[in-house]
């Protein structure tokens, strides 16, 4: 307390000077319109600047929440999109019922049998033999599941064969991978009698337990009709960039078992 009083006494001239300056400025502000406008303008400028600065900092800290919101929203939209497509083709028997969101924690593209691991397992509702897609197109099929993780047989795996159709003509074929280029898939079983051209879109055919009809796969980048077997050899450039997968959607379908029982009978 003593030191506060001492410092006030020591700086009394400065304090008196500041108080008297304030009084004279106040008198200017009240009485003179020129100064009133000038000081008012400065105050508005400063308060505008400072509130802009603080709001931009706040929005930066909210980015993470914002991101999560967008992912959730995306998930809902994807669900609606699939539902809508299924309604159009009236393919209700193989309707996909819900979607689970998962993130990639391991991924490879340089082997002949590539596997992806995601951070969702049985606890998250994931089971074996579910189809996996990304926002751009198909990714693969769940191979095995633990409590918290699941492994996916990627489309870039020479063991996997996915039913596919030409979007325009509905000619049925199947997608495989030859183990060479991670951007190019092979479309087989298209007879030479059907007409194709470069740029045609390939989508899933729906004749499988894993994927509903109409999920995008890629576009035709090259084809060879000189085969003696009566089928085209078609190169498909995939929509997905398999080297940069992050968020995946797992399609949950609860009528697979019923169909399997029928098939086994």
């Amino acid at each position, binding site marked *: 307390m003593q030191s506060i009083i001492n410092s006030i006494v020591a700086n009394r*001239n400065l304090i008196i000077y500041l108080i*008297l*300056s304030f*009084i004279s400025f106040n008198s200017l502000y*009240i*009485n*003179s319109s020129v*100064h009133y406008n000038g000081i008012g303008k400065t105050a508005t400028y400063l308060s505008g600047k400072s509130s802009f600065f603080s709001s931009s900092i706040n929005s930066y800290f909210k980015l993470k929440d914002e991101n999560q919101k967008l992912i959730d929203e995306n998930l809902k939209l994807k669900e609606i999109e699939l539902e809508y497509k299924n309604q159009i083709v009236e393919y209700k028997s193989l309707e996909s019922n819900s979607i689970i969101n998962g993130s990639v924690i391991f991924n490879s593209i340089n082997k002949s049998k590539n596997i992806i691991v995601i951070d969702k397992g049985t606890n998250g509702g994931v089971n074996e033999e579910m189809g996996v897609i990304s926002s751009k197109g198909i990714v693969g099929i769940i191979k095995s599941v633990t409590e918290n993780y699941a492994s996916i047989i990627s489309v870039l795996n020479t063991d996997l064969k996915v039913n596919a159709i030409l979007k325009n003509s509905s000619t049925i074929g199947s997608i495989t991978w030859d183990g060479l280029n991670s951007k190019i898939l092979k479309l087989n079983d298209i007879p030479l009698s059907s007409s194709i051209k470069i740029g045609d879109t390939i989508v899933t055919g729906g004749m499988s337990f894993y994927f509903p009809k109409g999920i995008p796969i890629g576009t035709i980048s090259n084809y060879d009709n000189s085969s003696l077997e009566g089928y085209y050899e078609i190169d498909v450039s995939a929509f997905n960039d398999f080297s940069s997968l992050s968020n995946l959607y797992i399609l949950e379908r609860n009528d697979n078992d019923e169909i399997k029982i029928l098939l086994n009978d």
Partner: protein
Amino acid sequence: MIRELLRNIFFYTIILVFQLFVFNQINLLGYITPFLYLIIFIHYKTSYNKTILIFLGFITGVIIDLSVQTYGCHTFATITICYFRGGIEKYSFGVNSNLPSAMISGTQLINRLTFYGIIVVFHSIIYYSLVFFNIELFWTIVLNIIINSIITFIIIWLISQLISNK
């Protein structure tokens, strides 16, 4: 002691009356108004109390402001030079500034010129910046500062010589 006080009050009143009734009426070429009253703060003795000097500056400023309706420009300019007078003294007179009543006699001419000059120019800069208060009138402000500083300086210098000769 009493005599000195009475003499100072008399000096102060005379200067203020001259400022109010003579120099404030002068408006040479439309914008020259000499600030004679600065002589009060120049001749305030260094041995006197500095806090009283600031209050004296405030009262003088208010009186001049009321008479010419500048609402606080003179007040702010005068209390500012009163507050910084100690620093200006040190800068102008160097080591001599601690000597009591070293002001008028016994100092170098160049020191006194510097002291008078700084106070007059400093006061003009603050006063005209506040009066115009508009960056677009920058050159008008500079012109006013230069011309008024010169005229005020000459008048204050002449009157100071007159007083010290007596």
